[in-house]
């Protein structure tokens, strides 16, 4: 894939726009739908990051500590700041291979988790998503539904709060930790190894498409769930926690 180093300069045509109240996901959506080939500097307080767009996809990102998808997800968490086009060097090859839709979903999930301190929550009614206002929010809800059919679980008042989880970790397909909470250091390798073995066992028995695993111990339970994006979610909850909603969502 050739990257548009020769097109990194900012076009002079068009309007100069200043928007109050816009979010970075709004901006990413706008740039990708416009098929832009540009680089933007994102400034939020003392933090600076760069997002690289090419042919309607975000193909590279840089932040203080990260490169690629991790940087994009970190930048998308920033809640306020400014965006301006700039001309910095393009990478030799894309460092982001997820679609922009997937990045927005991951970002929205991370934001929900950090903001509401809920790792898994279920809408109190189906109409909750339908009443969400704002284009991006409703679009994101649709994307979430498309990405994760298990989110279409029947309405339930049950929810699992952070306090109920002993550990939580989300790994990307390469095994990198995307997000983690609690005592996830030991859970991550166990989850990655177990999921791989489950896939191999399934393949040998002619059962394709590993999606979830639940393992019950005397003191706790471990849940694994392979998301459609390829990410692996692992949770550890106490044995006496109410897990009916979680089972329903993961299909175990």
């Amino acid at each position: 894939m050739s990257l548009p180093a020769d097109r990194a300069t900012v076009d002079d045509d068009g309007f100069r726009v200043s928007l109050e109240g816009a979010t970075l996901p709004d901006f990413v959506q706008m740039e990708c739908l416009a098929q832009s080939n540009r680089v933007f500097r994102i400034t939020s307080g003392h933090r600076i990051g760069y997002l690289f767009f090419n042919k309607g996809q975000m193909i590279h990102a840089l932040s203080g500590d990260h490169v690629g998808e991790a940087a994009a997800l970190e930048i998308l968490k920033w809640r306020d700041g400014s965006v301006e086009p700039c001309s910095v060097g393009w990478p030799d090859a894309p460092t982001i291979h997820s679609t922009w839709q997937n990045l927005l979903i991951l970002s929205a999930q991370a934001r929900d988790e950090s903001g509401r301190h809920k790792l898994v929550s279920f809408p109190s009614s189906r109409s909750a998503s339908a009443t969400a206002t704002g284009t991006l929010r409703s679009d994101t809800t649709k994307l979430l539904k498309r990405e994760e059919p298990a989110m279409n679980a029947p309405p339930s008042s049950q929810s699992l709060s952070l306090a109920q989880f002993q550990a939580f970790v989300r790994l990307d397909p390469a095994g990198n930790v995307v997000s983690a909470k609690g005592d996830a250091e030991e859970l991550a390798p166990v989850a990655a190894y177990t999921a791989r073995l489950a896939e191999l066992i399934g393949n040998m028995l002619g059962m394709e498409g590993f999606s979830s695993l639940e393992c019950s111990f005397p003191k706790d339970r471990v849940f694994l769930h392979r998301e459609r994006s390829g990410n692996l979610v692992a949770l550890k909850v106490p044995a006496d926690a109410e897990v009916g909603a979680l089972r329903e969502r993961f299909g175990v």
Partner: protein
Amino acid sequence: MITQILSGMRDVDGVHGSFVVTRTGALAGKDLPPMFDDAVLNEVGRRVVRLHEGLCAEGDDFDHCVMRFADHKLYLRSVPNGFLCVLSTNGVNTPALKMALTLTSRRVDPLIVDAAAAAAAPASTAVPPRTSEVPPPPASGAPSRRQATYRGHRV
């Protein structure tokens, strides 16, 4: 005997069949369609053992484990002498299956070690001794009808 006990698992709607492996992963018995041959199930057994070791790395043994795939589920029940593994559809009646697992695992567990040994024994005796090996001594003084050889020569 194990196959007969395992066949009871299929009383639960949605269960395709089941098999039992020892703590080392050796196949001890199965009640599955012929397409699941023993070699595959032995390999699956070894992976089940590794999966168990991975999940139980912190020390506690698991009671049961269920894996969900696109159209099927695989249940593992840990018993003292091995693992009872059950293949089912995703729509299987879970409470009924758990009850069947509990009853079946109680009856199967005491038989696992003997069944695995019996399954291994015919395989070892069925292979004829290579002529390069020293023949076994004749049993209890009875004359041997087979001509003894050593390195291909009569002795």
